[in-house]
């Protein structure tokens, strides 16, 4: 991994011995499972018609959000995408506030004003999910500019998809981030699809290589392996924090659910086979993590199951909270346009 980084545009300050500390493994798993269970529940709620708006689920990509955000503090910034629940939860967002938001309730993190596509928690450095593909890139560049100006070692992370990598704003950002040595990490999650188009049909070449011409290091990582993501992000975040500039990480993963949760009810034709999905599920992040931990005796089967059980309760509570929450007052629709 480190070799790759060095190969493409400059060395990352990285210590190959760095890996997830054993004491953090349960927490890493908890975060991934929190996302998984929350998203599975979201899917059910969407299909049963309980959610007013559309949801784009993060199932299968958990390792990226969790592996990256493990290196971030509340005053570091992230911006996310339309597929934003995972980043929200990984960066410390509270499940019940997320569910209440997606239900459109007054106690939602955005008071019901934004819904799934806009979950944000500014006090935790979450600039929000975004309905504009590529929209988070400009926002994090601004946050990185702020971080660079105030000199406190904060970092900004832009999460975006393989589809978003084809928006020109990414290259504009790579150029400026390189020139100004901004403390930013660009994290492209290549989940194989840009909506219903397989990546290869709309994305020429390799995304991680797009950084090098701007003298920004680019690196590819297995986005289903939270250990690999953690290590790569460790180096990139460290690089940013110490004033050495930006990094582009491409995390290879797979979107196990549809682009949007009820798509099979309206799409005229399938765009991938069930077999493909089944095949890919064999190497999804939780499977990979579990077997790695068991194999290397890092966590026991019981420890893992305990986490799952605890999370299940937490998510059920979060959903109940959201279901019971009141709708926002109607007058609220006239608020919040201006400060």
């Amino acid at each position, binding site marked *: 991994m480190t070799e790759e980084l060095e190969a493409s545009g400059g060395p990352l300050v990285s210590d190959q011995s760095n890996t997830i500390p054993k004491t953090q493994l349960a927490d890493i798993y908890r975060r991934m499972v929190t996302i998984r269970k929350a998203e599975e529940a979201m899917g059910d709620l969407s299909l049963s018609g309980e959610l*007013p*708006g*559309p949801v784009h689920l993060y199932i299968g990509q958990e390792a990226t959000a969790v592996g990256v955000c493990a290196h971030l503090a509340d005053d570091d910034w992230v911006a996310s995408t339309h597929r934003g629940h995972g980043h929200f939860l990984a960066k410390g967002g509270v499940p019940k506030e997320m569910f209440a938001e997606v239900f*459109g*309730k007054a106690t939602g993190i*955005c008071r*019901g*004003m*934004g*819904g799934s*596509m*806009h979950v944000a928690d500014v006090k935790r450095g979450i600039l929000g999910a*975004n*309905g*504009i*593909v*590529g929209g988070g890139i400009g926002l994090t560049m601004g946050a990185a500019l702020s971080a660079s100006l105030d000199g406190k070692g904060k970092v900004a992370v832009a999460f975006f998809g393989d*589809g*978003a990598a*084809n*928006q*020109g704003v990414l290259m504009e950002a790579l150029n400026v981030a390189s020139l100004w040595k901004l403390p930013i990490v660009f994290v492209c999650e290549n989940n194989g699809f*840009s*909506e*219903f*188009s397989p990546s290869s*049909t*709309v*994305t020429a070449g390799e995304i991680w290589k797009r950084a090098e011409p701007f003298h920004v290091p680019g690196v590819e990582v297995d986005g289903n392996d939270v250990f690999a993501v953690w290590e790569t992000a460790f180096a990139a975040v460290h690089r940013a924090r110490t004033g050495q500039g930006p990094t582009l990480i491409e995390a290879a993963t797979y979107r196990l659910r549809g682009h949007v949760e009820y798509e099979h009810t*309206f*799409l*005229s*034709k399938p*765009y991938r086979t069930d077999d493909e999905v089944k095949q890919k599920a064999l190497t999804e992040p939780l499977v990979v993590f579990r077997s790695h931990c068991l194999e290397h005796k890092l966590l026991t089967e019981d420890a893992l199951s305990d986490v799952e059980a605890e999370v299940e309760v937490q998510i059920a509570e979060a959903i109940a909270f959201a279901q019971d929450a009141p*709708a*926002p007052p*109607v007058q*609220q*629709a*006239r608020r919040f*346009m201006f400060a």
Partner: protein
Amino acid sequence: MARKSLIAAVNEAIREEMERDPRVVLFGEDVETSLFGDTAGLSAVFGTKRVRNTPICETLLTGMAVGAAASGYRPICHMMYGNFIYTGFDAIANQAAKLRYMTGGQITLPLVYIASIGGGKSAAAQHSDTIYPVLMNLGGIKVVVPSTPADAKGLLISAIRDDNPVVFLEVGGRTGRAAEVPDGEHLVELGKADIKRYGKDVTLVAIGSMVAQAMKASAQLAESGIDAEVVDPRSLVPLDKETIIQSVKKTGYLVVADESRDACSAASYIASIVADEAFGALKASVRRVTVADVAIPYSPALEKAVIPDAGAIVAAVNSLKSGRSAA
């Protein structure tokens, strides 16, 4: 005649025009699979040379459409949600709207941008915008907003055959109500309003999604003895001022219903035309029923409170008829 949704009518219009004219080509993000269904199945018929899935890159797409049109094709560029027109705004505002003018008429731009607009589906602020006001102000762009499947088909065919940039906006999303669409070639001229209901007491000009609300409002008003005329401009650029003015001259009262935000809305423009050119016919204030200058909220109760409905139109008419408004 057969009953079809607006989406199906759009699909049919594109299909017929692609059959008729090999220079008509279609591209956009996922036009093959088609998020809304309006372009579903077309790539199977016309092949992936003429129906092209593009990457996500609105800035390029809008400009590429201009270039393809300038060089002899008749591109249809599908922009998906209306607010992605903001993303690709540069080439629409700086190139499509001005290239013919700046080159003294040398460049002809037969091109259509399609997008879906409006709220009501908890798609939140970005995806729920009603975007035509910003397009109307650009000058060189025709803007079409059909309210029925039949108008959608007829206007889209005219748009595709038009030698100018046209933005064709779909209201109601993938789940609009089905209605009759004439069989055979069906054209609706750009710039001709349609009187969706004849009446003598008040003119309701209603755009896009507001036409159905105005029809509902008319039914309610009829119960209290007010006979409303519903004028659907259908195309906002060019705008059929004459039909609107004639209606106001007949009724003396005007309410304009428009799902766009109020400031510089289509409603404000139409109101200002009437306040200028038919002032003498007006017996009361001209009322706009629009979205107050806020974005569209996600939560259904809030969204409903923000987007005008039949009740708001009825209330506006009643405020006029009771003379309460003529301050």
